[in-house]
């Protein structure tokens, strides 16, 4: 069964007792009575499988038991009944779920080496975009996902130490501020939920993962390219190859749990980067950026 098989009423009923939702290798049991959350899930997770028996993470989005339940209502994120993060305005219920699920993965899935990076794939090879917030990583990721690249994740590169491959976690792509309009203009076919204003990250909207991302959600990707994106308004595109050592440092600097994996983590990442070519890429427009990535793939 997938989410789209449930009527809005059924989905809400499931959410009240816990919806076991599959996203890539993880199943999250989500409990909430927030209507906005149900709408967000119906829109973004329509094609995702609904499971029954086992969840990796049990999360709940609920109103606090105080005045803020009614007065300028807030919601809280609970990980297995323990409140986490500060409360947010109730209209941010869906972004909060997304941030919370990322937090679950980065805090609980240490079986993988987890790197803060967008991952896409073409011709069997992965393109990893490790970068701090503000570098244009998500915008580029969303653009590529609508330009013939398969989306693995916009936030989390999961490297499996057993196989040395990247495991997909296809979920909606989070876009902020001006990126939202840029993407809507670039890919009119992309599906967005209504923009939520005034979040801690500014205006936020989520773009639904394209269909092939979900169809191939169990297909891992081999090492390919590591590209450190850097958006600079009006700049001419400049793709500079850097050493593998520098590429590896970029992954380590953006890793969530490299420090936990010790020697094995170092070897895993070293082997991975050995099979990649690494670049630093400055660009001034989304079209330029996508063009540069396509040329990398075509040259391979």
């Amino acid at each position, binding site marked *: 069964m997938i989410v789209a098989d449930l009527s809005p009423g059924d989905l809400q009923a499931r959410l009240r007792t816990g919806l076991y939702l599959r996203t890539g290798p993880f199943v999250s049991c989500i409990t909430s009575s927030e209507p906005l959350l149900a709408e967000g899930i119906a829109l973004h997770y329509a094609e995702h499988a609904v499971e029954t*028996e*086992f969840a990796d993470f049990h999360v709940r989005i609920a109103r606090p038991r105080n005045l803020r339940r009614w007065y300028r209502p807030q919601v809280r994120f609970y990980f297995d009944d323990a409140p986490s993060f500060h409360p947010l305005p109730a209209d941010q219920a869906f972004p909060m779920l997304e941030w919370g699920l990322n937090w679950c993965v980065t805090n609980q*899935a240490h079986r993988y080496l987890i790197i803060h990076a967008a991952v896409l794939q073409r011709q069997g090879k992965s393109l990893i975009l490790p970068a701090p917030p503000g570098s244009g990583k998500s915008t580029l990721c969303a653009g590529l996902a609508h330009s013939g690249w398969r989306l693995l994740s916009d936030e989390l590169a999961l490297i499996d130490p057993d196989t040395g491959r990247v495991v997909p976690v296809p979920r909606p792509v989070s876009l902020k501020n001006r990126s939202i309009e840029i993407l809507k203009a670039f890919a009119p076919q992309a599906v967005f939920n209504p923009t939520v204003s005034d979040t801690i990250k500014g205006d936020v909207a989520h773009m639904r993962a394209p269909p092939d991302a979900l169809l191939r959600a169990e297909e891992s990707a081999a090492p390919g390219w590591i590209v450190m994106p850097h958006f600079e308004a009006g700049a001419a595109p400049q793709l500079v190859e850097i050493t593998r050592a520098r590429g590896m440092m970029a992954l380590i600097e953006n890793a969530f749990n490299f420090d936990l994996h010790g020697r094995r983590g170092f070897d895993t990442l070293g082997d991975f980067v050995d099979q990649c070519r690494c670049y630093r890429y400055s660009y001034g427009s989304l079209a330029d950026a996508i063009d540069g990535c396509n040329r990398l793939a075509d040259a391979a």
Partner: protein
Amino acid sequence: MRQDLLRHALNDIDLAVHLPLRDWDLLLRQARSADLLARLATLIERAGKLADVAPQPRAHLESALVLAEAQGTAVRREVEHVRLAVNSLGIDLVLLKGGAYLMAGLPASQGRLFSDLDILVPQDRLAEVEATLMLNGWATTHHDPYDQRYYRRWMHELPPMLHIRRMTVLDVHHAIVPATASLKPSSAALLAAARPLPDQLGLRVLAPADMVLHSATHLFYNEEFSHGLRDMSDLDLLLRHFMQEGDFWPGLISRAHELGLNRPLYYCLRYCKRLFATPIPESLLAEAGTHGTTARLMDKLWLRVLGSLHPSARDIGSAAAGQLLYLRAHWHRMPPWLLAYHLCMKSLRPGPRSEGTP
């Protein structure tokens, strides 16, 4: 059974390994909330049965093993930093609890997670130790004057110290119970009996009996027992290990008498046997204490609280039991007038932020 799944799993690894997915869904949550996921994972791994676990829960066990291994490495490194600082004063570093189990290579260190490092120093050297630690990068926390006074006048430890670069937390104790507590075990006696570790110069841990008595006292006279089942599991593993030394049991009883820690030992032995079937001789239990009305009430409270750490097993009764034990712990920590003063101060002042990330 479902309420008690975690304890059953720890007691019977074969049962755990073959649980259906639906039960693993609950077991993982119970284990995580009791801080016992890594221990469960280690027990399964050492039994060579990790591969028998279904892949979905196995991923979480593997994750917990990665975390526990990394913490072990980090704590070893941290111990070395603290040892160098303390040894520079000509004092051996005496480790307590998790740090001691780890450095002594005890089974109780297997899959044990850490939030801080605990050490014991002679009270008359406390000021020197604190100054040296500060010179080496540790800074005090709890800058509120009331909290500082609370620790320094009434507690058995300095306010937790935070290393400004490594962000590690160090608890410097000069006793194992607060200065104001009804129990008064002699710190000098504990330090005098502390044992050097083979091949590790300048490093000591408490003698086996003292290690058990400290862990028991810490659990049964503390107001915070969210790690209650983890601490009981530690005690079970300590007892099973030390009982291999022939005269451990009689020595344990006489040491408890010497230090005035009969009561915590009695609860420790009684609940280890009840919860983990630790092979403790019946005669020893009788020798450790009598089971009167108070003890029967304590049974009800402790077993309720220790068995209901996860929301899946919590009800009004367990909440009430937790409240009563919380009050009892404070009652034992300080005389009534001081308790009234302290609770009053705490209720009037904004407390520390305990939330944020779980």
